[in-house]
């Protein structure tokens, strides 16, 4: 019996996980949230923006990680608008376009921000796997990379982009990344070459890869996963999907930990029984 439990069919594990996550979603409870230093660093960096400062938001992720990154993306976009910064939206991923459209529809329009005046949507530009040609192009001349906005307006006719030539005119770059090209490429080309401050928003799995860049100062802040998004929503005092999904995420994590502990206990007793 103990051995059978120790080698339990994985479908029972899936079923238990589904039940626990469902409970977390159907009966959410408020949780006391503590803010991690990397998220606080990101918040502080964005808080230092002055009205009229140009900030680039690069939506380099697709729908598969939308539940993880979109809460942070919406919260950060909202924070940028709250600081009255001029927001330039772009993406190096073709799948990033709907993510940007969703962010504009969810945050910019309800907040009454005006296109081409408070924010501009430059759209998607393919720069290869590394995005280097696009990033280096932005470093020398943004207009050469995006001669028109996503809506078709010529670069020179956009009020927000007056006087914006290249990275030297940009105060901050925030990259929402699920892979490549993304924050690693921005660090390589934008931060290393042009010393542009960068805030990274990444999935929880890839966050450990970015810690060395955070420690060395190449990243000014790091927001990781749904939890990072929830912490950011807490910081700007605007609850959203991040905080809403936190209890379900917590129950799922605790369930997995209980599985691990149960497996070890069962293995221990199965081993003792065998030696007897």
């Amino acid at each position, binding site marked *: 019996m103990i051995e059978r439990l120790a080698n339990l069919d994985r479908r029972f594990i899936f079923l238990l996980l589904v039940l626990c996550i469902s409970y977390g979603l159907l009966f959410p409870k408020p949780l006391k949230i503590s803010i991690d230093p990397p998220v606080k660093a990101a918040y502080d960096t964005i808080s230092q923006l002055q009205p009229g400062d140009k900030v680039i938001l690069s939506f380099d992720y697709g729908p598969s990680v939308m539940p993880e990154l979109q809460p942070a993306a919406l919260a950060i976009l909202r924070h940028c608008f709250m600081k009255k910064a001029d927001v330039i939206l772009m993406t190096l991923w073709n799948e990033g376009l709907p993510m940007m459209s969703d962010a504009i529809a969810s945050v910019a329009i309800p907040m009454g921000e005006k296109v081409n005046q408070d924010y501009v949507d430059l759209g998607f530009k393919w720069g290869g796997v590394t995005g280097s040609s696009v990033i280096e192009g932005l470093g020398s001349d943004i207009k050469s990379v995006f001669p028109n906005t996503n809506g078709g307006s010529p670069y020179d006719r956009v009020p927000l982009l007056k006087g914006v030539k290249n990275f030297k005119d940009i105060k901050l770059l925030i990259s929402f990344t*699920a892979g490549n090209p993304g924050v690693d490429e921005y660090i390589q080309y934008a931060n290393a070459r042009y010393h542009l401050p960068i805030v990274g928003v990444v999935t929880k799995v890839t966050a450990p890869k970015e810690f060395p860049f955070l420690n060395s100062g190449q990243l000014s802040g790091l927001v990781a996963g749904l939890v990072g998004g929830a912490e950011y929503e807490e910081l700007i005092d605007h609850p959203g999907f991040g905080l809403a999904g936190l209890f379900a995420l917590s129950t799922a994590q605790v369930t997995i930990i209980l599985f691990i502990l149960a497996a070890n206990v069962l293995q221990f007793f199965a081993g003792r029984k065998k030696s007897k």
Partner: protein
Amino acid sequence: MRDVQHSTVFAAMALMGAILFYCILKAKKGALPYIRTISGLKAMDEAIGRATELGKPVLFISGLADIDNVQTLAALSILSHVAKKTAQYDTPLIMPNVASVTMVTAQEVVREAHLQAGRPDTYRPENIYYVSDEQFAFVAHTNGLMERVRPAANIYMGRFFGESLILAETGHATGAIQIAGTAETPQLPFFVVACDYCLIGEELYAASAYLSKDPHQMGSIKGQDYIKILMLLLIVVGSLYETFNVHILAHWLGG
């Protein structure tokens, strides 16, 4: 050079190139270096043998990056060896691809391997095909393939992202022997947990030398080790310098 950063990079590149060249020349003269056993690569022949005994195909996935990524090139080097073995044993080799250029290159690699093995008639180009550029569309197809065809050996070599655990777990559930190799550090834990063997980081790049036993390539592995020793010394010396507030090295390295 534009600034001190680039001159440092040039000097480092020149030094590394010189070390690699020296080791390659030394190996060419007959002094073959010793390379420790890499269990994942050693197990490849065993995995292919198992697939042959069971009469099942071998599944090879070269990652989710395009041909311009070094990991994909390393994977294709390994594919060459795997294709030669499967040609010798007349075992089907299936390779779904995420990029069309990689597909074309892989077809050429496998065709050459069949020619070198003296079995050009057993080459099946329809087994090396394009699926989709989209990550999860590719994963959905590959998972379905594993469930339907039930390959006896799954070999994952190259650049993988979030789909690594999905592939590896599905392969484990079908009972296949699995060998993985990637330089993507976030995905290594998933492969280590779900696969029988895993090549970690630079072992993937050393695979070509290990499998071919080519003196030039084996010499370059030795050169890599010397470079790493130099880096280690630099780290130790640099840490001591910084601890005692001497910033010469940091400034020279562009810090």
